[in-house]
C-alpha cells in the first residue's frame, strides 16, 4: 500500500465529510433518485458477519422487490475477502455488514475500497457518533455468574476479583487469541490503565504492584496466571456457567449477552453482573459500509436505510444484547437500553486499538500457556 492509496483514503475521508456537511435537505431530494435507481439495479450482494442479515434481506425483498444475496462470513474471512477482491478490482460485493471495525477500517475504509453512507432515517435519528461509521447495531459482552450459587446478590464487585484465589481456575473466556473484538476491548484496558489501577486500590485498599508496563497488561497476566479457562465458544461458556445443579460453577468473562436469549429455553441459571467495577464488559459496533465501486449503490443505500428502521432491525431485536442506534428501539424484555450500557461499559478507541492490539495479543500469547 503506497502513497496512492493514502491519497485515495484522504480523498474518501474528505468526500464523506463533504457529504455530511451538505445537510439533510439535500438528502431528501436525493432519496427519490436513490429509490428510482435502486429499482433498476437489481440484485444486491452483501457480505455479512451476522447471519440475521439474511432474514432482514428476505423481509426487505418482500417489501421492495429488490433481491438481496447475503454471504455469511466470519470476521477475519470477510475483511480478507473484501480486501483481496477490491485490491484485485473485483467489485461484486455492494455492501458489507462487518465487525472488528478496527481491522476493517485499516484494510477497507482507509484504503478507500469502502465508504461510509448515512441514509435518511439514520441521518435524522441516530446520534452523531453512530453515523460515521454507520452503525447497524451494538453488541455487548458481559461477565456472568450462576444464580443457584449466588441467589441473592451479584458476587462480582471488581474485575480484579477475577485475579484472586477465590476465582482461581473458575473463570472462562473465549480465547482472546482468536477473538479480534476481545483484542480491541483489552486495548481499552491499557488505555485506561489509571482507572483500572484505581479500581484495584478501591477493591483491596492498596496500590497495584506491577511487573507489566501498565494495569491493563498486568490484568491480562494475573488473570491468566490465576488459571483462567480458555474456551472456543460463547454458547458453551453460557451453558457451563448457567447449568443447574453445580456445586462449583464457573464464571464467564466477555461472553455475548445475547446468549441469554436461550436462558428460559434451556433452563439456565445465569445472570450478568451489573455492578462490576470499572466496566460491565464491553460493547462494539456492527458497521455498515458501501463499496466504493458498488454496481448496485442505490439498492445498497436503500437496504442500509431499511436496516436503520425498527422494522429492518427486527431480526436482531428478538434477543437481549443487541441494540439499534435508532432511539425508538425498545429494549428486549429485562434488558437495558443502549444508552445505559454506554454509561456502564467501556468500548474502545479506534486509533489506540489499532496501534496497541498487537501488544495485547502478544501479552496474551506470552501468558496463555501454563
Amino acid at each position, binding site marked *: *500500500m*503506497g502513497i496512492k492509496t493514502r491519497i485515495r483514503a484522504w480523498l474518501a475521508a474528505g468526500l464523506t465529510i463533504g457529504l455530511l456537511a451538505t445537510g439533510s435537505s439535500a438528502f431528501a431530494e436525493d432519496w427519490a433518485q436513490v429509490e428510482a435507481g435502486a429499482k433498476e439495479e437489481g440484485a444486491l450482494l452483501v457480505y455479512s458477519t451476522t*447471519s*440475521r442479515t*439474511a*432474514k432482514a434481506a428476505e423481509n426487505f425483498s418482500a417489501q421492495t422487490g429488490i433481491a438481496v*444475496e*447475503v*454471504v*455469511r*462470513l466470519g*470476521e477475519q*474471512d470477510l*475483511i*480478507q*475477502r473484501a480486501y*483481496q*477482491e477490491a485490491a*484485485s*478490482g*473485483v467489485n*461484486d460485493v455492494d455492501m458489507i455488514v462487518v465487525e472488528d471495525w478496527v*481491522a476493517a477500517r*485499516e*484494510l477497507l475504509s482507509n484504503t478507500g475500497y469502502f465508504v461510509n453512507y448515512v441514509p435518511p432515517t439514520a441521518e435524522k435519528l441516530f446520534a452523531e457518533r453512530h453515523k460515521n461509521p454507520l452503525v447497524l447495531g451494538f453488541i455487548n459482552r458481559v461477565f456472568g455468574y450462576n444464580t443457584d450459587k449466588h441467589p441473592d446478590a451479584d458476587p462480582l464487585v471488581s474485575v480484579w476479583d477475577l485475579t484472586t484465589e477465590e476465582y482461581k481456575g473458575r473463570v*472462562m473466556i473465549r*480465547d482472546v*487469541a*482468536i477473538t*479480534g473484538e476481545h*483484542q480491541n476491548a483489552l486495548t481499552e484496558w491499557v488505555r485506561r490503565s489509571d482507572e483500572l489501577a484505581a479500581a484495584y486500590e478501591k477493591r483491596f485498599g492498596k496500590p497495584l504492584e506491577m511487573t507489566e508496563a501498565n494495569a491493563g497488561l498486568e490484568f491480562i497476566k494475573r488473570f491468566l496466571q490465576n488459571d483462567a*479457562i*480458555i*474456551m*472456543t465458544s460463547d*454458547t*458453551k461458556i453460557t451453558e*457451563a*456457567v448457567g*447449568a443447574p445443579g*453445580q456445586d462449583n*460453577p*464457573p464464571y464467564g468473562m466477555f461472553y455475548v449477552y445475547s*446468549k441469554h436469549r*436461550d436462558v428460559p*429455553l*434451556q433452563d439456565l441459571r445465569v445472570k450478568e453482573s451489573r455492578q462490576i467495577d470499572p466496566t460491565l464488559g464491553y460493547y462494539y459496533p456492527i458497521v455498515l459500509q458501501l463499496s466504493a465501486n458498488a454496481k448496485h449503490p442505490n439498492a445498497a443505500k436503500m437496504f442500509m436505510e431499511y436496516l436503520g428502521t425498527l422494522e429492518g432491525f427486527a431480526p436482531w431485536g*428478538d434477543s437481549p444484547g443487541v441494540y439499534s442506534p435508532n432511539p425508538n428501539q425498545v429494549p428486549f424484555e429485562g434488558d437495558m437500553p443502549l444508552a445505559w450500557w454506554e454509561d456502564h461499559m467501556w468500548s474502545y478507541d479506534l486509533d489506540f486499538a*489499532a496501534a*496497541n*492490539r*498487537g*501488544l495485547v*495479543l*502478544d501479552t496474551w*500469547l*506470552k501468558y*496463555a*500457556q*501454563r
Partner: protein
Amino acid sequence: MRTLYSRIYLGLTPQRVLSILFLIVLAYLVIVPLFLMLRETFVVHPLERFQIPGSQVGDLTWAHWQRNFFSENAYAFFYRPLLNTLKIAIGFSLLALLIGGTLAWLVVRTDLPMKGLIANAAIIPYIMPSWTLALAWITLFKNQRIGGDQGIFTALTGVATPDWFAYGLIPITITLALHYFPFGFMLIGGALRNIDAQLEESAELLGASRFTILRRIVAPLVLPAIFSTFLLTFSRGLGTFGTPAFLGGPVREFVLSTSLYANLIGQRPGIGYLAAVVMIVLGVLVLYMDHKIIGTRRSFVTISGKGARAGLVALGQWRWPVAALVLGFILAVIVVPLCALVIDTVMLRPGIYSWDNFTLHYWIGDASLTVGLGTGEPGILRNSQLMSALGNTMMLAVVVALITGILGVLVGYAIVRMRGTWVSQALDQMSFLPYLMPSIALGAIFLAMFAVPRGPIPSLHGTFTLLVIVCTVSYLPYAVKAGVSAIRQVGPELEEAAVMVGASWWTRMRRILIPVQKSTYFSGMLLPFISVTRELSLLILLVTPATQLATTITLRYTDRGWYPYTNGMVLLLVVIVVSSTILSRRLMGTSIAKGLGG
C-alpha cells in the same frame, strides 16, 4: 531386457509430454502460491506497522522472523506450541496407523466375519467433522473444571476424571487418531490386498512363525503405504486447528495452528503465515524422509504376471472375540457419535431428552418463528437453499474425485516409470506441496491469484471451476500417493509383454495398469471425494451465493446455536457419502468381498 524397458520412455512418449505439462501447471498452482506466502512473511502489513518502529506498510522486514525465532518471548510464541504440535502430530499419526493398519489387516487378510459392515463403517469417522469426536470426548469425560452438566463417565462411576485425561494433549491425540485412521485403513488395505499369498505360504512352509511372516514379509511390502499414510496424517495434523483449540484451551495447551489463526485474526498475516511456512517445512522434512527410506528401495513389485489370489489367515478361536472387539470399537467411535447427532436433530428444544420433546420439525417442518428454536427456517429437507448447497457439494466432490483420480494415475505413472529422473522427483514433490499448505492460507492466496485475468488464464473469480481447481490441487496428493503405490506394485514385465505384442501406451493403461489396481485408485479418489464434502476454510473465501456449499451455508446456523440444522447436514453428508461409496464400489467391481476397496 534393459533396452526394451527403456524403449518405453525414449522420445516424445505420451507420459513425457504429460509430465512436462503437469510440471508447468503444477508450477503455477503450487510454486507461485508458495512464493506469495513466503513473501508475506517479509512484508509489513497495516496493523503490523505499529509494532515495528519506523516502518511503513509494504516495507520489507525481518521483524516477523526475529519475533518468532529469536525474540525474548520466542519460546512462548513459537517453540512451545511447536513442541506440542510435534507431540500431537507424531502421536496421533502413529496411533492412527496402528488402528487403521490393524483393521485393514483384519478385514483384508483374515477370515473375520462381517467384513462388509466393518469396511464401510470404517470410513465414517473421516466423513464426520473432527469436532464431533472432540465434542463426544468432552461429553463423556469432562470434569468440573469446565462447568456445565456432569460428564457421562463421572455421572456413571462417581469418579472425577483428572484434567490431563479430560483435556489437553492426550485427548487431542486420541480424537485426531480416531478421526484420521480411515486413511491408513484405506491405503494400507489397498496394499495388503495386492500381496501375493504365495510369499506368505512359502514362508510358512519354511517354518516361519506368523509374527515373523508379518515382520519379514507383510510389513516390508506395505511399507510404502505405511509411510504414505504417516505422511498424509502427520501433515494434516500440523495444520489442524479446531480440535486442539477446543480440547487444549481448558488446560491452556496450544499448538502451532493457534499461532496461524491468532495472527490472521489479529490482522498480522506476516506472523501468521510464518507459522504456515514452518508447517510446510516440517511436512517437507517428512516427505524427504519418505523419499530416503522408500525411494531407494525397489523391491515392491507384488503384482507379477503370475496370477495369485490372496489366501486368508484363519483367526481360529480368536475369530469371534476379535470381531466383537472391532464391533465394539465401531460402536464407540462411529455409532455413538452418529446417534448423538441424530438425537440432536429430533429434539424440539435442545438438551431436553424426553419423548414429548421429540420432533421432525428440523427435518420437514414449516418455517416458524414460534416452534422450538424459533428459527424461521423451513426444515432441512424442505429448505431449498440447503438442498441446492448440498447439490453443489456433491457435484464438486464427484468432479474433483474424477479429476484427481485420473491425474493420480497419470502422475503416479510418470513418477514411477521415470524414476531417477529429475522430472519424476519434481512431480512427486510438487504434487504434494499444496497438501502441506494450511487451507486457510491457500484459500486466501488462490482468491488473489485468480481474481483477475493473468496471461492466458481468465478471471475465474466466483466460478465453480475455481472451486474445482483449488480442491483438485489441494487433494491431488491423496490420488498421487495412491497412484504411485499402485503402479510401484505392478511389475514392469506386464507392460513389457504388452509392448511386445504392440499395445499402445493408452491400451496398456486401459487394459493393464488401471484394471489390476483399480481398488487402490478407487481409494485414492475416495479421499478427495470425502474431503471435498467437508472442506470449509479452503473454500469459504471463494464461494458465491450461486456456489454455496453444504459446509459454508451451515455457518449461518452455527453462530446462532441452531445445531439441529448443522448436525442434520452432517448426517445427510454421511448418508450420501457412504451410500455413494458402496454403490460405486459395486459398479466398479471393487467389491468388499474381495478385500475392501482399498
